[in-house]
């Protein structure tokens, strides 16, 4: 009887909850930021990319760095869910759905931001009717579509048992939630929880976990190839695929640290996302940060040792020149400080972990900017016969508004998903509860 009670308690704890006051403020702010971004995009559609600060030399700006950031962060879904699952890391169960939600939101906005970057977005369909398989952009279109689809499936399959619970419990009598209820029914009314269904679902999840890993590697490797397939200093590197993937795992890990803390606080999940989770994820992020640091040393030390003429201006610009403050900020705040914080046991308590996570994510965003822009300011031939504004780059308000709007949009998607679906897989938590009880 008591077992049943505790089960009921777990379900009550983990059911998605309506927004409280701060939830409403949070959602309102996100929507407002999205609207500002949409207005800026309207201006961009109307006047063209002239509203940005991008010009002929810096032809890719924060839109592209934001795109790389989103693609990077989306990789977390495959890390937490697939890698941990396949290596039978059980403590990660409560984190899988958070990771998948972040992945889906990020991959959606990666596609959005790449369309925003296009000069003629009304011709997007050309990619499908004239697509050229030789171009890395087409590879990116293919892998992003694939990854999005896999992420949706990986979110959906483990949700099925939870949807059954939701249909059983969720405010069924409340008239206000009629549509939500219909939506649940649409998604999973057929799930009865029979052993055959479980068998099929388990098998599907296992296949997905195996499939998502190479696809996830592809998506970020291909994204790195958008740069590495050119001749430009700072991009012309064989190291780029691995460098991007390690960076992606780091920022994904950082994002999970932040999300864990926020959801734990907002939904009072202290019993489910325990200090132990912070401890373990903290260690994980240290490992990932060290890995990324290693690739960074590779990426900068080797060319700096040679100081090829074409690389020289680019590298000195980063180390001591105009980009130096940002560069060292990204290295220190994005990698070294989080490593130091998380190395200590005290540093792996929820709050310091949260702070380290924020540092990782913010550092990672600027790191992407440093990968994209400084290179473009150091072409092989001198910058000649162009207006003065072409020689520098600082994003215009429209670019900031759209970039921030897209970040807000991703957070909004996560917020909405967390409103509709349980943040922590209820069914799996119950099963584990049973196993430990036995």
């Amino acid at each position, binding site marked *: 009887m008591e077992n049943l009670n505790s089960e009921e308690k777990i379900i009550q704890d983990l059911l998605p909850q309506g927004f409280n006051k701060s939830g409403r403020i949070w959602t309102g702010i996100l929507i407002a930021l999205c609207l500002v971004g949409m207005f800026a995009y309207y201006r961009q559609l109307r006047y063209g990319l002239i509203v940005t600060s991008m010009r002929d030399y810096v032809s890719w700006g924060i839109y592209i760095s934001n795109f790389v950031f989103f693609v990077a962060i989306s990789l977390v879904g495959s890390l937490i869910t697939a890698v941990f699952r396949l290596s039978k890391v059980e403590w990660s169960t409560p984190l899988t759905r958070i990771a998948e939600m972040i992945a889906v939101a990020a991959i959606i906005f990666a596609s959005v931001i790449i369309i925003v970057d296009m000069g003629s977005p009304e011709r997007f369909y050309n990619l499908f009717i004239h697509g050229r*398989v*030789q171009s890395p952009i087409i590879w990116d279109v293919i892998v992003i579509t694939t990854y999005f689809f896999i992420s949706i499936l990986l979110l*959906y399959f483990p949700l099925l048992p939870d949807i059954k619970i939701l249909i059983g419990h969720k405010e069924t009598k409340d008239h206000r939630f009629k549509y939500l209820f219909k939506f649940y029914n649409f998604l999973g009314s*057929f*799930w*009865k929880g029979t052993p055959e*269904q479980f068998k*099929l*679902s388990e098998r599907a999840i296992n296949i997905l976990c195996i499939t998502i890993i190479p696809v996830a590697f592809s998506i970020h490797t291909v994204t790195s190839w958008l740069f590495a397939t050119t001749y430009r200093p700072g991009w012309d590197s064989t190291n780029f695929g691995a460098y991007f993937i390690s960076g992606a795992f780091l920022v994904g890990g950082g994002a999970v640290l932040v999300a864990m803390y926020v959801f734990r606080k907002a939904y009072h999940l202290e019993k489910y996302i325990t200090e132990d989770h912070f401890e373990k994820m903290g260690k994980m992020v240290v490992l990932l940060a060290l890995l990324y640091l290693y690739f960074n040393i590779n990426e900068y030390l080797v060319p700096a040792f040679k100081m090829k003429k074409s690389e020289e201006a680019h590298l000195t610009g980063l180390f001591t020149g105009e980009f130096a403050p940002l560069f060292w900020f990204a290295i220190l705040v994005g990698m070294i400080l989080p490593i130091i914080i998380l190395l200590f046991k005290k540093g792996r308590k929820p709050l310091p972990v949260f702070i380290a996570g924020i540092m990782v994510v913010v550092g990672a965003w600027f790191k992407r900017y440093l990968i994209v822009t400084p290179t473009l300011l150091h072409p092989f031939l001198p910058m000649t016969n162009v207006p003065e504004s072409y020689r520098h780059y600082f994003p215009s308000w429209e670019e900031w508004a759209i970039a921030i709007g897209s970040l807000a949009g991703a957070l909004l998607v996560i917020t909405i998903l967390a409103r509709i679906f349980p943040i922590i897989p209820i069914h799996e938590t119950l099963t584990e509860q049973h196993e430990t009880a036995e």
Partner: protein
Amino acid sequence: MKLLNKKIITLFSIVFLLAGYDGLSQDAQKGDLNISLSSFISNNKIPYVVAKVKTKIDGKFQMVSGINLNLFLDKDSAGTLIAKVVTNEKGEALAVIPPSLKNEWASTINHTFLATFDGNQKYEASKADVTVIKAKILIDTTSDRKVTATFLEMKDTAWTPVKGVELKIAVKRFDADLSVNETATFTTDSLGQASADFKRDSIPGDSKGNIILVAKVEDNDQYGNLSIEQTVPWGSKFAGENNFYKRTLFATRDKAPVWLLLMAYSIVIVVWGILFSLVDTIFKIKKLGQQIKS
């Protein structure tokens, strides 16, 4: 005349400026057009005339397009009109001699081409003329790759050799004449002849090795422009080599390398095959669930 014009222009300008209306003042400041005429005869066949129109803007000569010109033969009258032409984007216009002028053409050895412009809102009326002596150019080649050009003019009723005419002996190339040897131009001797040795060995010709030799008199004050061509098999056979139709990374989508297509399609088919089978699993699960209901 010009002085008067200037005075009128100044007066008009002042009047318009005073009236605070400067819209018409531009019309009042008409530009002067400079017309130049040249005659051409190719392969001693069809004579034609080219008019070039330019004007000085900010101290620099600029070509003027869209100028209506009347071209006449020998005298400015309706009966001797060669053509009404309009200059193109380069300020040039061309006309051939129409059959209606057969009698005028046959009447004299020397001809004068006239061009008149009646003036429009922007430019003053203007005219130009050029007189040329009837002449012809011949080309001859020998088997030891020597090219001889002969220049003749019509004197009374006989073709007479002309000495001291500067001409080009060249291989015809893309919008250019590549001299047959290091010498750029040749001068005719008392026989009206100029000879040149062909030194452009193995220059690419067409697929049979044919090249076109050309002898040319350009911008001659007395004779205008004359040229004659002859095709000779002195070039190397040109076999076009092109990777345009090959499968490469820089070719169009229908010419993607096979290895790339194989890689791309095999990966896409495998991955999406798995994904579709998983979607199928959803339907299977659904079916199982519905069976229980019934």
